[in-house]
């Protein structure tokens, strides 16, 4: 077995928390159950990984198998990576039958014709997700296995989720290979990024509960807003206002859990408008700002602003549009909010 492969396997196993190593090796399926039985999972991780490497040596593991283990690790720990969303476009409306073998062949072919030194690995998951791992090299150097790119493609959709390696120069080639393989003609990067891959999927696949078109004037059955004070003398205090805010929030955010995003960024290029009496700035040029909202769970946080008295209800559409516009990066210009689209045309 190649010592670079051995080292790569060793390091991959070291990343795994000790109590999950057995489970991941079983998922990998490269070592037999009998071999797994010989492993002592109660020793320090250094020793465990050494033993795993030895067993892989027995089975003559190569980089292809090692790469599969890496995909398994990254699939389980997908939230450690930052994911960007790309949307592909078809020229016609025809829904073609998706052939996974054809896809893989075309993808590999496109990449390999441009770059000889590249490691390409596929793994399919139950939810129609195809995970692709690409390790990049140069004409003169073997692929760097420690900085691969990961792509998640749901074949029934035009969406691709990419966690790029640091080597961003390979991105155009990756995009090209994707559209060639999937029979689309164009691909663009959406202004949507997050660590939570599932939340990104929720947003673009519209799997979260959205605002209802019709609303009921009263709170939904069984959802009374508990007054904060237990004092029964305080009955009407702000109750109607609280109910109004609650209702508006429901309309805008829906009743269910929000997709998990960590930040939203707004580049503002709007005019500064003020009360003429204040005698302040009245320029003809935009007042340039960059606003960034961050939170462990941004949308839940924004949802709670109006009830907390921190914001007006309804909240600004700039914030509430995040899920259904499927973006968390915005450039806002005066008058109409223009959302210029950036096309990553390879």
């Amino acid at each position, binding site marked *: 077995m190649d010592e670079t492969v051995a080292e790569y396997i060793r390091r991959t196993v070291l990343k795994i928390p000790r109590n999950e190593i057995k489970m991941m090796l079983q998922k990998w399926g490269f070592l037999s159950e009998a071999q797994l039985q010989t492993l002592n999972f109660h020793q320090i991780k250094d020793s465990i990984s050494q033993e795993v490497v030895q067993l892989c040596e027995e089975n003559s593991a190569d980089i292809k198998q090692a790469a599969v283990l890496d995909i398994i690790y990254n699939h389980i720990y997908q939230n450690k990576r930052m994911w960007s969303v790309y949307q592909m476009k078809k020229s016609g409306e025809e829904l073609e039958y998706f052939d996974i073998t054809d896809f893989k062949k075309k993808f590999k072919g496109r990449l390999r014709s441009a770059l000889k030194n590249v490691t390409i690995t596929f793994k399919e998951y139950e939810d129609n997700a195809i995970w692709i791992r690409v390790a990049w090299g140069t004409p003169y150097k073997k692929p760097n296995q420690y900085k691969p790119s990961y792509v998640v493609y749901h074949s029934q959709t035009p969406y691709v989720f990419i966690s790029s390696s640091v080597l961003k120069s390979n991105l155009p080639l990756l995009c090209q290979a994707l559209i060639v393989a999937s029979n689309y003609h164009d691909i663009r990067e959406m202004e949507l990024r997050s660590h939570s891959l599932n939340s990104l999927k929720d947003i673009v696949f519209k799997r979260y509960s959205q605002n209802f078109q019709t609303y009921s004037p009263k709170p939904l059955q069984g959802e009374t807003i508990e007054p904060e004070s237990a004092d029964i003398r305080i009955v009407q205090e702000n109750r109607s206002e609280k109910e109004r805010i609650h209702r508006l929030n429901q309309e805008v955010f829906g009743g269910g859990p929000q997709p998990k995003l960590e930040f939203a960024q707004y580049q503002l290029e709007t005019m500064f408008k003020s009360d003429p009496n*204040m005698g302040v700035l009245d320029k003809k040029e935009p007042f340039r*700002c*960059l606003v960034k909202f961050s939170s462990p769970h941004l949308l839940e*946080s924004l949802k709670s602003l109006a009830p907390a008295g921190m*914001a007006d209800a309804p*909240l600004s559409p700039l914030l509430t549009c995040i899920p259904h516009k499927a973006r968390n990066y915005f450039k806002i210009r005066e008058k109409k909010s223009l959302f210029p689209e950036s096309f990553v045309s390879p």
Partner: protein
Amino acid sequence: ENVDPQKTAFLLRKAWTLYSVTPLYRFRRSRLRDYARLLSAFIAAEKQKGLAVEVGVELDIRVAVSSLADLRGSEQDQAAVLVQLSLRSRASSRNSEDKLVWSGWFCSVYGDDLSENVPEDFTCLPLFLAHGAETYTSMVGSWFQKTFDCCFRRLAISPLNLSWMVAMWAGCKLDRAASAVELVFSVPRLSQPLDISYAIHPEDAKALWDTVQKTPGEITQEEVDVFMDCLYAHFHRHFKIHLSAAKLVKVSTAVASAHCDGIVKILHSQYLPGVLMLLTELAVSQIQ
């Protein structure tokens, strides 16, 4: 009042933790060398007691105490006093350089409010800035407190003072391309905490401040309020959020940045006296 930029270069681009210090009793500028020796012995004793910072290799802490004659505001101010702790490994050769591990300096820039009302034997240096490990700060602070019967207290910076700083610094004229004027707010008491960073292009922030400030060289609370209200209004227009109800925790400009926990970074030597004057004022009001 022109401070030699070379001498003050060490101040720039470091995060300083701020303290207010009550006047020092019987502090003698002629005895700086003695103080360095005494402090050194104190630190060595603390380490032997088991409050060691480094374990393993035997390390000597070298203490240097010096006077910074130029670092003051008026003639009434005491010149700043700098304390530096360096590590010299006994194992290393004689020519190896000491590694500076901690610096702290006392200063007063226009601290007349305090020094005017203080008896003869007291030295007023109300502002203390420390950079380095907390354990060293603690040891140096303890020694000074014991030796000069003074009291150190962390200097927090209120949102009110932070807004003064950002208004003042946003208006500063800078010859080089400046970084953004950034205000960082925190909204902690929600179900999920929210941080908001509001960064304004430095030219636009300065243009706004210039229309607000009525008398050059003079700043009033009212002008700061108008400036902040403008920023809040612009924000509210877009997001419908009342930023004034959030907690201002940090401000950052090309001149300096300040955090509400009392941490300051000064980036431009040109405005050093102005920044120190403001901080001295904060320290003095905390003492009084």
